């Protein structure tokens, strides 16, 4: 199930970072790393730190931290291994932003894309070794969209924070 939302607003401050804006509740984290799985851990930790900084009770925070770590790890692994074909000279860009109780995660790959709608309905069989990444992302995030970007594709994932 492909769902859409307005990306432009949430990204308003990416380009104007440093400019005087009167938006006091916005957190934006943009990360670029080489196309290697050894960077999964640091990005996962950053996602966890972000979760812990949001105003939740401890239990919910732990769960949210795991979920963000997981979703980001799955999306990045796909970008690194499928889209960018494990080419260590490519790179992966990730952005995490929080505004108006919405958390948005984007993972930019340099690949030629795939049909996420064909996948998202299929759940891995219990004894399949792979195929759980995209279903996990759909389960944990409220809106998921995969689309063309300037230099490849981007997986945009939105979660509504209570």
């Amino acid at each position, binding site marked *: 199930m492909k769902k859409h939302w307005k990306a432009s607003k949430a990204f308003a401050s990416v380009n104007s970072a440093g400019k005087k804006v009167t938006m006091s509740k916005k957190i934006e984290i943009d990360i670029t790393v080489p196309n290697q799985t050894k960077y999964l851990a640091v990005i*996962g930790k950053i996602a966890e730190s972000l979760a812990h900084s949001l105003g939740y009770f401890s239990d919910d925070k732990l769960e949210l931290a*795991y979920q963000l770590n997981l979703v980001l790890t799955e999306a990045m692994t796909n970008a690194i291994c499928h889209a960018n074909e494990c080419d260590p000279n490519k790179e992966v860009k990730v952005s995490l932003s929080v505004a108006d109780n919405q958390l948005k995660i984007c993972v930019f790959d340099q690949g030629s894309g795939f049909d996420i709608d064909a996948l998202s309905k299929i759940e*891995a069989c*219990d004894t399949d070794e*792979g195929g759980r990444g995209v279903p996990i992302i759909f389960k944990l995030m409220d809106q998921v969209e995969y689309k063309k970007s300037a230099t490849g594709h981007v997986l945009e994932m939105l979660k509504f924070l209570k």
Partner: protein
Amino acid sequence: MLLNIQEQGEIVKIEVKEERMDAHNSGDLKEQMLQLFDEGKCNLVIDLSAVRFVDSSGLGALVSGFKNASARDGSLKLCSLQPQVRSMFELTRLHRVFEIFISVEEALESF
């Protein structure tokens, strides 16, 4: 991936000594298990007590071991899951596939 491997009679206990199992290191566990299967050792207990985070690649490695053990009339059992890791098995419904024990002792006794 840091693994502590101990043979206890017919059973091989593999303790994963990593906080995190993901696409970067899970291949190591899978290969280590394949090597044990080659040596005819197909009763495994995987101790996950140190593991705080598992992604789908980590689950994939465990499913691989599970299938290979079963195909050889052995079995792969899990123990000492942290609560968040346990939730991950529930999210993917793999808790219905694996035998999961509270402690290494209980896992070893179950054979």
